[in-house]
């Protein structure tokens, strides 16, 4: 085996084993034929020092992603992963859409543009902010409303997918503008939240042509419940002046994820039918909530200033421990459940038998 073949086979390791068993040798033969040359010296040089180019590597990476999460008729294990990614994308969109509605409503209320039975309090001027900070915050809150059509577009069908990257780009641009206008430091929470927002459109690969339609009713109910929880949280805890509530934004989502994990595992323990994709999705969501919790904790320690409730930091540490334990538990269950699902399809096996 020449060095270039070894390098190419290393690249192919990105593909699922079941797929490689059928296609690897053929792919290697095709690749080596594509770099063949009539000149003997050139051929020897390529064989010893050549390597697959980036476009070639990217095509394999794209295939690896598609086979795992975006392939119609994929083996049961990869189909479950694909569903899990779809659930995660929809869950994050749900959070963004709900937060967008509540933040826009609150901003309009505080600006005196949304009359509510309760009069809007006077928000104090933060020291060092420019005069335009209120307009900047209001504009940023209204940009957050883009997540609402993105969420509803995706539960309606694939045609609305383009709204997700549009909302992601607008949100990252608006939040970055706020930071630069107000002169705030870039916090770990800001970086982590925007990282999730930027990664979100990649999950759209799981909404492939062969994917079953989303259960609209369930997600509409989830949107209603999520909006009610968020509105209740905002009405009960959020005040225009410090201290901020002890259960902060990251804490709220840690709590929601932990409750979801407990309910899911309780259903399994009671022998009720559960989708293994939800087990995997809750693992991803728990790790995301933990990341958010640790990022905000890092900010609390880094900016040891006033502004938050004395119970916030001890509560945040407790939340990090609880969500980490829940993430480890659900990850173990998820790994065990998914490993029992077949990683090859009858089609792949038939093809393999035919071709060999």
């Amino acid at each position, binding site marked *: 085996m020449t060095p270039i073949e070894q390098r190419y086979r290393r690249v192919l390791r990105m593909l699922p084993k079941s797929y490689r068993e059928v296609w690897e040798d053929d792919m290697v033969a095709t690749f080596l034929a594509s770099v063949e040359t009539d000149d003997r010296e050139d051929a020897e040089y390529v064989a010893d020092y050549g390597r697959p180019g980036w476009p070639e590597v990217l095509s394999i990476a794209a295939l690896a992603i598609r086979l795992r999460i975006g392939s*119609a008729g994929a083996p049961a294990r990869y189909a479950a992963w694909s569903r899990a990614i779809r659930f995660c994308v929809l869950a994050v969109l749900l959070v963004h859409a709900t937060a967008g509605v509540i933040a826009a409503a609150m901003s309009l209320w505080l600006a005196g543009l949304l009359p509510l039975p309760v009069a809007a309090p006077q928000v104090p001027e933060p020291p060092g902010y420019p005069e335009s900070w209120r307009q900047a915050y209001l504009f940023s809150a209204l940009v957050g409303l883009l997540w609402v059509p993105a969420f509803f577009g995706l539960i309606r069908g694939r045609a609305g997918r383009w709204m997700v990257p549009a909302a992601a780009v607008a949100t990252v641009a608006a939040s970055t503008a706020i930071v630069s206008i107000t002169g705030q430091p870039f916090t770990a929470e800001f970086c982590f939240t925007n990282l999730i927002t930027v990664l979100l459109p990649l999950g759209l690969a799981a909404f492939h042509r062969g994917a079953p339609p989303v259960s609209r009713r369930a997600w509409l109910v989830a949107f209603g419940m999520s909006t009610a929880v968020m509105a209740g949280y905002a009405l009960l805890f959020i005040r225009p002046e410090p201290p901020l509530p002890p259960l902060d934004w990251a804490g709220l989502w840690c709590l929601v994820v932990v409750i979801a994990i407990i309910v899911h595992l309780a259903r399994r323990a009671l022998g009720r039918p559960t989708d293994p994709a939800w087990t995997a999705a809750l693992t991803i969501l728990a790790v995301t909530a933990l990341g958010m919790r640790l990022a905000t904790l890092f900010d609390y320690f880094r900016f040891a200033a006033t502004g938050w409730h004395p119970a916030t930091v001890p509560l945040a540490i407790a939340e990090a421990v609880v969500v980490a334990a829940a993430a480890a538990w659900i990850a173990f269950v998820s790994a065990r459940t998914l490993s029992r699902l077949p990683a090859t399809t009858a089609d792949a096996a038939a093809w393999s038998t035919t071709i060999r």
Partner: protein
Amino acid sequence: MTEPAFLILTALVDQARHGYGIVGEVDGLSGGRVRLKVGTLYGVLDRLVSDGLVEPDRDEVHQGRLRHYFRLTDAGRRSLAVEAERQAANARTALDRLQSWPPASPRRAS
């Protein structure tokens, strides 16, 4: 139907071909515009096989390596014909419109 899938099916109309044979034929059919990467080729082939449009033909040994050949199925031929007719109809419509609506004559400088 994506352009790579359309060109791969077209490449298999006259004879069964192996992976690199398809890459070369698609390159020729598209006038060098579409150069399939191996990951793209096998991603599309995998989908065409699962859709029943392409199937394995035979194996041949070339320079010590086994080459798998692929051929078009009847369903693949029909699917390609439908897609080619659709594209041709679109092209005819566009050409008719272009001939009916010539570009406005350039304005004379005043």
